[in-house]
């Protein structure tokens, strides 16, 4: 279990912000840090990783103090046994894919893990390539594999999927869930995508202006509701038009745009950019084969 109680004054473009996060993260759980950009998510992750030193507070992991500012304790990142996937992947350009993984090995560590990870992440064909020749999704897989070489107990991912397109995203979500279970990880990731969070996370910590504004299961944090309709999608409102007592909503669901009619009192409470659930009975849609 990770017990976190950290405080740091951050200087952002909009001025000074006081980051104060107090929370606990269960062992083996998958936790998402959620919030607008500039809310302090990345700083929070970097503090846990030891890449940033908080002004005050403490981090306790499985009963061991990683950070305790009052007692002058702050383990360097090298001593925390964590996996970290950076937003820009941070693959070493001078090394091939396999060399990137091998570099991560500890002294005297069995090289077997490299083969295992190459297998899991399907990197066989890529192992002799340099990172600059890889696509975004491939880089992400390498970064993820590299972060697991040392068999960390905690895996942290800074917006791992935001730069990828929809299908690759889906595949990587699957990879992350797979290694999360297989390697018994405690995983902390940053995400903006509510449907992704609902699918993956055990817990959501929502930050705003450096403070925890909500935390709990994704269902409670996002006011999620399950309908028996069997068709349930999350989308983003991209247009709202009113006609008589009806609202015509244009939603973006994944890469598709759909239009939906909503009632007056439903439409009144919606704004462009809101995330919504779209539910329908399984009996209504018609299916037409295209490929």
């Amino acid at each position: 279990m990770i017990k976190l109680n950290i405080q740091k004054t951050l200087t952002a473009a909009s001025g000074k912000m006081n980051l104060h996060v107090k929370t606990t993260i269960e062992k083996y759980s998958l936790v998402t840090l959620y919030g607008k950009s500039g809310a302090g998510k990345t700083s929070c992750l970097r503090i846990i990783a030891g890449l940033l030193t908080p002004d005050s507070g403490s981090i306790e992991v499985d009963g061991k103090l990683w950070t305790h500012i009052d007692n002058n304790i702050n383990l360097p990142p090298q001593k925390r046994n964590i996996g970290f996937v950076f937003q820009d992947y941070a693959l070493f350009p001078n090394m091939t894919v396999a060399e990137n993984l091998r570099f991560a090995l500890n002294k005297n560590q069995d090289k077997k893990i490299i083969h295992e990870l190459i297998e899991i992440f399907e990197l066989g064909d890529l192992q002799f390539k340099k990172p600059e020749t890889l696509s975004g999704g491939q880089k992400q897989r390498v970064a993820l594999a590299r972060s697991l070489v040392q068999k960390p107990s905690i895996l942290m991912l800074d917006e791992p999927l935001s730069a990828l397109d929809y299908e690759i995203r889906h595949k990587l979500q699957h990879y992350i869930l797979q290694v999360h279970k297989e390697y018994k990880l405690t995983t902390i990731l940053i995400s903006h995508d509510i449907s992704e969070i609902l699918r993956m996370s055990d817990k959501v910590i929502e930050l705003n202006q450096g403070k925890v504004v909500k935390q709990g299961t994704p269902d409670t944090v996002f006011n999620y509701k399950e309908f028996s309709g069997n068709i349930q999608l999350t989308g983003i409102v991209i247009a709202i038009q009113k006609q008589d007592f009806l609202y015509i909503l244009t939603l973006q669901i994944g890469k598709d745009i759909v239009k939906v009619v909503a009632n007056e009192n439903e439409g009144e409470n919606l704004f462009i950019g809101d995330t919504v659930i779209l539910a329908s009975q399984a009996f209504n849609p018609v299916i037409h084969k295209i490929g």
Partner: protein
Amino acid sequence: MNILKGKIENINSNHQLSIIYINVNNNRLTAIIIDTPKTSKYFKRGKEVQVIFKETEVIIGKGISHQISMQNKIEGTIKSINCGDLLCKITLKTAVGDIVSIITSNAVKQLGLEKNTLVTAMIKTNEIMLSE
């Protein structure tokens, strides 16, 4: 959305499908769902559920006796009618609470619907969704 609160009275499952009978203020509504008590934890007798259906799926019949395949029939009187060019929004006062229906303005004219008219609101079984 029309949302009514009810209690699951009975469940009739066959393979993937279930027909669920819900008691809403002593009116019986039915819903068909691709789920069974095995696949969904909240389909249990006695469970409190929300019965959800869209206004545009509510059919209005004048009077109370219809020979029709609809399973969900709720009698009521018209509380208000609000018409646009093409569509009208009708609010009914019924034993299970207010129900809103959106039908075409033509239909309102043809049936001669007005305030206090006695009508039956009907919803097809497959248009009803349940939620906790």
